[in-house]
């Protein structure tokens, strides 16, 4: 009998988390990386040990938002690999540590293999695993939801018609799969009421359009300060779930 020897260890490592939060959206460019980085930083600064994984294998960028130079970092080996400590309470793993910001064209099976490999060998220590996923119902997201059915997905949406339609689709998909949505973050919306009108429910978080988002890239202090008010509902919900 031939089998994927990594899966039992992957499942054990995922079970060590109290909560797994994939950050997802069916469209690109709506702010998943900003939101994933923001909630990870803010939770860590409120004393919650957070593990953050960039699961966008073909285009990892979370390290840029966090100000981590992937070209200079290789995670330490110790009976596996230890995630990189970004600041107290926040550890981080990214395929960019291995691909060094070069193109990484992967097809479905290869991408799933790379994700399983990283999940099997990474020795996390957080209570919450936040996962920045690629746009759409990607292989990374589907594999993660297959491995951890208790995941609570945080959906990021802008307030235009296309994004709202796409968000309804992903919420319907999650319902059909029996996977819980943590909630929806409305991003870059002039009024978050539009998201409520479009989806029929209150957003869990609401971020305005940030004129100078580029100034936040790599500046964790500015990122935490700017995102804190709009993401407070997300933080409160996660902290409640951890109690």
């Amino acid at each position: 009998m031939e089998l994927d020897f990594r899966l039992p260890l992957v499942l054990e490592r995922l079970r060590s988390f109290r909560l797994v939060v994939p950050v997802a959206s069916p469209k690109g460019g709506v702010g998943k990386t900003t939101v994933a980085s923001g909630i990870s930083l803010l939770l860590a600064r409120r004393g919650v040990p957070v593990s953050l994984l960039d699961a966008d294998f073909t285009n990892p960028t979370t390290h840029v938002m966090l100000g981590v130079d992937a070209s200079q970092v290789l995670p330490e080996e110790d009976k596996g690999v230890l995630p990189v400590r970004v600041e107290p309470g926040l550890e981080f793993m990214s395929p960019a540590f291995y691909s060094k910001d070069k193109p990484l064209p992967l097809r479905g099976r290869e991408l799933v293999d790379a994700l399983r490999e990283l999940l099997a060998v990474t020795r996390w220590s957080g209570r919450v695993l936040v996962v920045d996923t690629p746009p759409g119902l990607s292989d990374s997201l589907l594999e993660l939801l297959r491995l951890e059915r208790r995941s609570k997905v945080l959906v990021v949406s802008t307030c235009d018609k296309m994004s709202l339609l796409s968000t309804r689709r992903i919420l319907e998909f999650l319902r059909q799969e029996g996977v819980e949505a943590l909630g929806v973050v409305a991003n870059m919306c002039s009024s978050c009421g539009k998201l409520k009108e479009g989806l029929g429910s209150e957003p869990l978080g609401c971020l305005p359009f940030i004129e100078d988002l580029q100034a936040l890239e790599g500046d964790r202090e500015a990122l935490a300060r700017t995102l804190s008010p709009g993401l407070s509902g997300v933080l409160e919900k996660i902290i409640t779930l951890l109690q």
Partner: protein
Amino acid sequence: MHEWALAEAVVKTVEELLSSGVQARYVEVVLGELQSVDEEVFKLALEELLSSLRAEKGVGVEGFRVTREKAVFQCRVCGHRWSLDEWELADEFREAVHFVPEVVHSYYSCPRCGSRDFEVVQGRGVRVRVV
């Protein structure tokens, strides 16, 4: 010691199979050339972890066998097939590929047409069979 995590994953799989009632006497591990797993370190880790499994959980297998498999690649664009004899891994990339074999796509391309859209046909990493 990344080999330890790989051996740990193998032993965790054996433990799950045995505890679910599967009859398993031997573990056969195939080490793919691309991942450059240190065979001696891996075997030592596997021996130690299998001993611990026997001592702590009272279950185990009679033994294990480790074999190697050559890496073979095939370009999806032009169909060219090649091995590491034609395309040796440079030392500076070997470590990254050791941890995540798929990042070979970041460092190499088809020796004939230059495309990075190629497949690792065999010899990617660790494979396990129980008999």
